[in-house]
């Protein structure tokens, strides 16, 4: 006796979190049933495999129908087809757009192109994330990227509005194409990069200035995913800090006098100050050129983090140094620039 047709429809759509998880992970119905069996649901509920299969199929069908709506989360809120309590809807969206950090780390900075999609098999093998799940996540990235590409205004807010979640980091990286794949950078997790992206957007982007963008200003037309060109241009002015020897010495003496006796690595600091300072300033100066932008994180690691680490700076030392290094000069542009750099470095300074 076979059931050709077997459906269950509730007035309130039933969402089984476990099955949703399995579906998101890209398991087939059979695999999902097997996993549920291993989860011991049979023993707990005293039911049969057939029931479990029927239940799983029902949920899968529901999710497939929901998927169309999940592609545009605000529609999920307005649609009439499924009656789902708000907190459940939020859960559906969150889970749908949640990503494996391992995967996201792999994809950071890569072009979200078809070519990349073809490489997902490899990525899947490397990260242990199911291929179907990889594809879904990739599509999510792409969908979000595409949707906000042409929008103005703060990126994070746009994404929040369109997808009801925080997706900004990925889009920011996909936009700016920072190099993240170098061996040097392998110690950095996705979370590190996400935090950096947040600080950079927070301090450097147009919206961060706290004033509505002037519609006549050239950058007002730019999407928020890119850093404002005028700001980057201004950063070039900072080069004078390291190019002018007097300024550099003055800066050094100010910082050193403030830190003397306060940090354990004072001697190393004194010795390396000029190199560090050059690195910190030049990173900013290079941001105007797309090719150099790619090296932003590489430079920070190579020229700041690694020397400090070899000199056994503690994170506290670094913090103290950066604080005084920034405070030694009073200039809005400088403070704005250093705020993000400080945040990034502190986040990245670990093993």
């Amino acid at each position: 006796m076979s059931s050709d047709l077997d459906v269950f429809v509730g007035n309130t759509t039933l969402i089984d979190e476990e099955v949703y998880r399995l579906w998101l992970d890209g398991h087939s119905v059979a695999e999902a049933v097997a996993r549920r069996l291993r989860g011991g649901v049979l023993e707990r509920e005293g039911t049969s495999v057939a029931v479990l299969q029927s239940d799983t199929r029902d949920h899968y069908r529901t999710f497939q129908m929901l998927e169309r709506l999940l592609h545009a989360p605000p529609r999920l809120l307005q649609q009439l087809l499924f009656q789902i309590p708000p907190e459940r809807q939020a859960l559906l969206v969150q889970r749908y757009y949640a990503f494996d950090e391992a995967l996201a780390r792999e994809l950071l900075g890569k072009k979200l192109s078809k070519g990349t999609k073809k490489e997902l098999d490899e990525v899947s093998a490397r990260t242990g994330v199911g291929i179907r799940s990889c594809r879904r996540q990739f599509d999510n990235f792409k969908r979000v990227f595409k949707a906000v590409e042409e929008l103005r205004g703060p990126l994070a807010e746009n994404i929040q509005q369109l997808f009801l979640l925080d997706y900004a980091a990925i889009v920011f990286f996909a936009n700016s194409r920072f190099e993240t794949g170098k061996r040097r950078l392998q110690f950095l997790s996705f979370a590190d990069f996400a935090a950096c992206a947040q600080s950079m957007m927070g301090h450097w982007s147009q919206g961060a200035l706290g004033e509505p963008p002037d519609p006549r200003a050239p950058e007002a037309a730019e999407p928020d995913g890119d850093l404002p060109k005028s700001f980057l241009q201004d950063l070039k002015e900072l080069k004078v800090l390291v190019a002018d020897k007097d300024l550099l010495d003055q800066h050094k003496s100010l910082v050193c006098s403030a830190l003397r006796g306060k940090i354990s690595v004072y001697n190393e600091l004194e010795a390396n100050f000029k190199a560090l300072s050059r690195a910190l300033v030049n990173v900013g100066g290079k941001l105007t050129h797309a090719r150099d932008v790619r090296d932003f994180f590489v430079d920070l690691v190579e020229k700041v983090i690694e020397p400090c680490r070899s000199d056994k700076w503690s994170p506290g030392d670094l913090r103290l140094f950066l604080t005084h290094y920034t405070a030694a000069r009073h200039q809005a542009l400088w403070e704005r620039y250093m705020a993000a750099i400080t945040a990034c470095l502190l986040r990245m300074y670990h093993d």
Partner: protein
Amino acid sequence: MPGKLKVKIVAGRHLPVMDRASDLTDAFVEVKFGNTTFKTDVYPKSLNPQWNSEWFKFEVDDEELQDEPLQITVLDHDTYSANDAIGKVYIDIDPLLYSEAATVISGWFPIYDTIHGIRGEINVVVKVDLFNDLNRFRQSSCGVKFFCTTSIPKCYRAVIIHGFVEELVVNEDPEYQWIDRIRTPRASNEARQRLISLMSGELQRKIGLKVLEMRGNAVVGYLQCFDLEGESGLVVRAIGTACTLDKLSNTSAFLPACNSPSKEMKEIPFNEDPNPNTYSSGPSTPLKNQTYSFSPSKSYSRQSSSSDTDLSLTPKTAPSPQRPRIFLFPSSPTLSCDSPHLKKSCLLLLGSSIKPLHSSHVSPVVLRKSVSFTEELLLAASGMGSGSAGKEGGPFKTLLRQQTQSALEQREFPFFTLTTFPPGFLVHVGGVVSARSVKLLDRIHNPAFVGIMGNTRSYKLLDWNSFNSDEPETRDAWWAEIRQEIKSHAKALGCHAVVGYSESTSICEEVCILSASGTAAVLNPRFLQDGTMEGCLEQRLSWQPGFFSIGSEKGEVDFFPQSQDSSSLLGIEEASPPGCGFCHIPYDELNMPFPAHLTYCYNCRKQKVPDVLFTTIDLPVEAIVVGKGCLIQARLCRLKKKAQAEANATSISNLLPFMEYEVHTQLMNKLKLRGMNALFGLRIQITVGENMLMGLASATGVYLAALPTPGGIQIAGKTPNDATYDQHISHMQKKINDTIAKNKELYEINPPELPEEIIGSPIPEPRQRSRLLRSQSESSDEVTELDLSHGKKDAFVLEIDDTDAMEDVHSLLTDVPPPSGFYSCNTEIMPGINNWTPEIQMFTAVRVSRLSTINPTNQTLNKNFNDLCENLLKSLYFKLRSMVPCCLCHVNFTVALPEDELVQIAVTAVAITYDKNQALQANKAPTEKSQQRASTDNEEQLQFPLELCSDPLSSQPFSPAKEVLEGASSHTGIPAAQRVLKSHSGSWFRAGTSPEIDRCNSWIELIKLKAQTIRRGSIKTTTSLEKASPLAEGYLRHRSVPSCTNSTVSVVKMTPLSFLPGAKITKYLGIINMFFIRETTSLREEGGVSGFLHAFIAEVFAMVRAHVAALGGNAVVSYIMKQCVFMENPNKNQAQCLINVSGDAVIFVRESELEMLPVQPSTAAPQPTSSAGDVTT
């Protein structure tokens, strides 16, 4: 007289992309009503168009308003080719036609296309300006309210329950017209949807007219069905119960709300009643009415004489007619019941323990082309209503019979589609009556068809009927025949009415089985005509079911008015005690032509009760139940040879009696296996397919305290000498006994052992009285030894004489009880559970399975069918496991046989959570219960004196104050009996202040006195009620609370029940009756049959919700999926499905949103201003 319909198209959203090039749509909207069409501008290049149209105004007469749906079509404008339709919205504007319902329809509606499903949404505003119409001869019936709910809707009060209304309209099915060959599936589907919408409108209007003719203003328990007869046409038919309802002015609000309207009641001009005879004296006291002038009507005697089944109800003792009889329904001719086949139709009398030999009696008769078969399920017929009247025939009893009879006799069909009744309405229940008839469908010829097409407006097409000579008459005659049969069966059971009545059909090719069933009952006549019972009725309303008002207390509370109003004042029947009165046999125990076990009622010990009771109604609230109930199903398959036309009909009709018998046996066995003794909500569905018949009976089993403990099941082997066989038998017997024991534990059925002394218990009065009032034969009264152990001796014997029987026994044992934390029932409320929490989940599940075996036999098919149902239930339990503890209520199975060996089962039900802890608490107070019972018992004694005082208060709305008090008392832990006494004395004194009942005053002291003395004696006798379902006291409180009408509209709840747990319905917005067709030519791409149907059902839900929300409602109650016809053609990658749903749109308010008022006895007491006293308990 016209009305003005105004429509505004506001906006659209999420439209589909219609122009591939631009990925956009140029949408505009056509608004059509009748033959007038308006268009909006094209809103170019947008998927979210903002039309913001002007108001489109249609000036139409109200007849058209009732029949026509508003049709909104969204199209994509195309400059060069024809405009593409995106989809449609049909809006039934009926809810706008009566003042109390919705005033505006406004909201987002899904745009529906029969091929693509939902495609975006459209925002529409609809209003109607209706001008008053004084034309007497109008064809419209605007203003008549319709309710699917099968009880008096909650915020209304029934003034009069008029009775049965029915109507049917017939048309050709567009799907089978020649034009269908050349038009697209979409056009065909839309033609069908529109036609059915029109037909429903027309049907509703016609029923409305009948209601107006009866001077009613509402139809309750409205059930409309479609028969897709295929080639021979399309029948839309409906039945319902006409009522005069009064809106409770401040329903939602105050406790004594039910007191106030009683005043208005009295002012209802009674002479309006078209029926001048019998109780025409209006609100006067029943005593005045006892002019003894009630005579058998002409129609009545004619029927009795002509009916050869000897159902005459002995008019001999009655005086001759004194007044000319005027029929209540002049429109309906009185049918004589002697249609020839009836004469021979055999009454299969199935007592509780008859052996199969009865089946040999069954010999259905083929008559012309129609074959008719009938059966009485259960405890049928003392047969001779006449005998009973004659022999018991004390003048009073006869009088009552005649009174009620005559009240009902004038009705062609004394049927009621209600399943829940105001307390006191139901006097006795006889048992289930059902009738089936097999008919051959003929092709309808429509000679007038062409002629009409030419010159009338399209909606007039419906009037084909009138031209099309005999068609509707044929269908009408078929149903009339069946109804007549039902009526005569009821009479055979000594009953004059049928309640919980329903009709259904099953069609396969050209064969159609018409079925009707109901519960024979004796009703309190006063509810049917007088305006005098409003107290009770209204009580009922404000009380409504389930979550706050179940259980024995209810019975007690109601008891007084009941006994006083109905029985005692009429001075006839011995007052039936609450909670058991309805169980007492309405037929004569001395004249039973079949073996049935009668015992004295285990509750009151005064009247006889059967050992098992089957009914189609919901468990009366006053019923005293032990333990919990459970869903019981009988499932059955019977193979049948494929045959054509008459041969087919004959073979079906030959099979029917056996199926009915077997279904009944299964039910009985399963009932015993669960240690229960009564079935409620029984619904037997017989479905006909090409090569088999299927029977599915569902009911809710309970243990009624009034009925004897059921005996076990005894297995008897045929070859007792075989040792291994014996062993096998005894093994089986053990298994059965274990199952019974387990079930008793599971359902908490522990009826208390009754102490022997009750026989000598000091209740002399009633006995005397019974002698006085009932000239029952002395002998029956003197049977003093109550055979208490009788139930146990009388084990039900199953004889195992062949493998079939063995199979049957096995299958009995395969029913798995629901997993722990789950209960299920098919009635509105689960007996024994009362503390519902507000979480509900309504669902529909559909399964189609192939019952394929190579050589199918009845046994294998049975097993497969059984497994299918069990698995389906199991899967439901699993799905809903997160709601535990919960109960599946109103579990409604429907079976269809779409093709050879394909079985389709559709289930709609609602899962309701309940609070386990509270349940335990409630159970802790059994002593209180028994005390309360005791106090009731007193009252029972006491109503005798009251009778004598000939209380002029014919209407005694009683206030809910008492219940609240009781609730309070059980919370505070004060012995309930005391509190009860206190409170009721309180209300008595109040009552005394009201001038009308001064005379009662003097009785109060006496009553109190007696109450106290008698209580002592009777407590013991009533301990049996310990387990009676307790009230959820907490819930009572909410009634004392004013309502605020803020509600969240975004979520629309749906439930098949007539109420929402933990909420209060504040307004009924109108009936929802929707019909959808969905078709696909890309079945695989839509996820196969399951994907297709899943999406469609979800879409139907969505459209129902959207309509309710647009009416301003937040829930649908009494929701039912009446039809789900699914057809597939996998080879062509096609499928089609038709779904018909209905329900009542309502606004509810959460109890938690209502402010709680302190419950104070003083405020709870009735207002002194109320004209009618408050005679509770």
